[in-house]
């Protein structure tokens, strides 16, 4: 019970304090809606946001289970509440009321701290995401940079959890997780750079507003690289090796139970939601105004979330060496080449349409870039088809047939 209280208190206190610290540094912050952040309104806004996030997290566990169940010919959870929608809350209550086990040989302090270390960066990430325009907690000019920076702190929590559990399975999960996170940061950031180049801003709202054509069409390669890098960062299929249930039981959270497990488990879905929001903002066109814009954004986010659930319901996972090879041998060069090509294209259209560097590109320049990029993307798929181990799989002729005499 003490642990539970401790967790809750830290969770509720740490996040706003950190945010306040960030929010009070004058040069970094520009408020879009000043009155929201004045005095008590700030806390009300924060409370609404966090409640919303926890609600979404709990519902996502239910949604994933239902969706994947239908892909598997099953019904899925349908007992708690109408159509089982309260299943997530039932699970949450069950997990919170469970005994909080700490292995005897575990490092108690780090073991208890790790779930918070895992959860906090993900919560902090939502500070800059314009879920509702005008309701952003901190409308940073370096919004996307902040997201990338703060979420990479999560690997610290993963490693702390794996190490402190004092279990070999956990350690394997932690080591795998860190190797994977470190590898996939690179192509992720490089691909985000292409988006930044195109939009000429690091601010999430400005990136969204720069999309005369949705960037998913302008940058299909960057979209795929970001999609799979995020899948790797979220430990989702096909890159869920650090909690590979068939190999290392549950990876870094093998030894966790009760509230701490709920935190880790919830973080997985919260992070999925957060990153899906970011991808939706980066790639799926303008943010609309008001409630309509909010619903539109949620719809776009659901598409990305559905992709993650869909992958999980269909694909197996990749081996550790293959994961690292994909990151460093394919995604990293691709992202680098992509950034160079995009820069060239931007210079090209700027010179044609006489756009000053730093200004957003208009509709026609983006259309030209789109056409070039889609052609290049098709070419890329053809090239990848010839890569051994990706599109080509050799089957050497090594047949041994004994000479069978007098058969039949």
């Amino acid at each position: 019970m003490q642990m539970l209280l401790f967790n809750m208190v830290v969770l509720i206190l740490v996040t706003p304090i950190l945010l306040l610290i960030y929010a009070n540094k004058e040069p970094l912050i520009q408020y879009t809606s000043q009155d929201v952040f004045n005095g008590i309104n700030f806390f009300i806004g924060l409370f609404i946001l966090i409640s919303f996030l926890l609600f979404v997290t709990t519902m996502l566990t239910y949604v994933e289970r239902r969706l994947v169940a239908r892909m598997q010919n099953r019904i899925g959870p349908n007992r708690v509440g109408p159509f089982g929608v309260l299943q997530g809350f039932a699970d949450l209550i069950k997990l919170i009321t469970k005994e909080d086990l700490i292995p005897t040989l575990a490092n108690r302090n780090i073991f208890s701290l790790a779930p918070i270390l895992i959860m906090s960066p993900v919560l902090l990430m939502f500070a800059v995401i314009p879920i509702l325009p005008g309701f952003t907690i901190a409308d940073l000019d370096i919004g996307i940079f902040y997201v990338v920076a703060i979420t990479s702190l999560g690997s610290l929590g993963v490693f702390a959890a794996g190490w402190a559990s004092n279990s070999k399975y956990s350690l394997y999960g932690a080591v795998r997780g860190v190797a994977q996170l470190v590898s996939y940061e690179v192509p992720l950031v490089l691909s985000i750079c292409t988006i930044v180049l195109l939009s000429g801003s690091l601010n999430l709202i400005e990136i969204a507003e720069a999309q005369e054509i949705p960037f998913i069409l302008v940058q299909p390669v960057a979209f795929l690289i970001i999609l799979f890098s995020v899948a790797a960062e979220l430990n989702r299929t096909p890159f869920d090796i650090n909690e590979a249930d068939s190999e290392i039981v549950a990876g870094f959270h093998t030894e966790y139970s009760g509230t701490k497990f709920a935190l880790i488990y919830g973080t997985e879905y919260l992070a999925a939601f957060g990153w899906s929001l970011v991808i939706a903002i980066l790639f799926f066109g303008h943010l609309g105004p008001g409630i309509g814009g909010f619903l539109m954004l949620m719809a776009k986010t659901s598409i990305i979330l559905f992709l993650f659930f869909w992958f999980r319901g269909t694909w197996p996972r990749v081996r550790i060496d293959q994961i690292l090879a994909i990151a460093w041998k394919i995604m990293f060069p691709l992202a680098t080449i992509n950034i160079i090509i995009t820069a060239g294209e931007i210079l090209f259209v700027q010179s044609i349409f006489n756009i000053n560097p730093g200004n957003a590109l208009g509709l026609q320049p983006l259309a030209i870039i789109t056409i070039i990029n889609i052609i290049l993307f098709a070419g890329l798929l053809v090239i990848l088809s010839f890569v051994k181990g990706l599109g080509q799989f050799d089957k050497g002729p090594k047949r041994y047939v004994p000479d069978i005499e007098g058969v039949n």
Partner: protein
Amino acid sequence: MTLELSRQYVVSLLTKHFEDVIDLDTEKHLYIKAENLHDVCLIFKDEPEFKMDMLRYLDCVDYIDHFELRYALLSLSNNQSLTFKVRLWGRDDPEVASVVDVWEGANLQEREIYDLMGIGFINHPNMKRIFLWEGFPGHPLRKDFL
């Protein structure tokens, strides 16, 4: 159909290579002397008439005064099979040469027989119990185990 090599045929071929390996030659079964087991197995495996490239099944029966090991061999190349037996006398630590270096398929089967029947296999790479734990009293498939 897999051809079951007849007893007389096997004996006539074996006598080409060895003088005295037949322990007992009854109506139904061919018994090889335990001390010659390994050499005979090599002949069975390598000679083109036999070419028994697979040890199909190895089993053991406890006849109170002796144990009978039954080696069922199979030749995939010639599609023929061959069965012979080895008798081991005495109940305290009977031992026989291992055939793991001839057919590796014998590895786990010999361990199983060691575990459940208590027959030691000399030169087996890993002669320890397989199903039961070390220190289990007795060998369950023996007739005197209760």
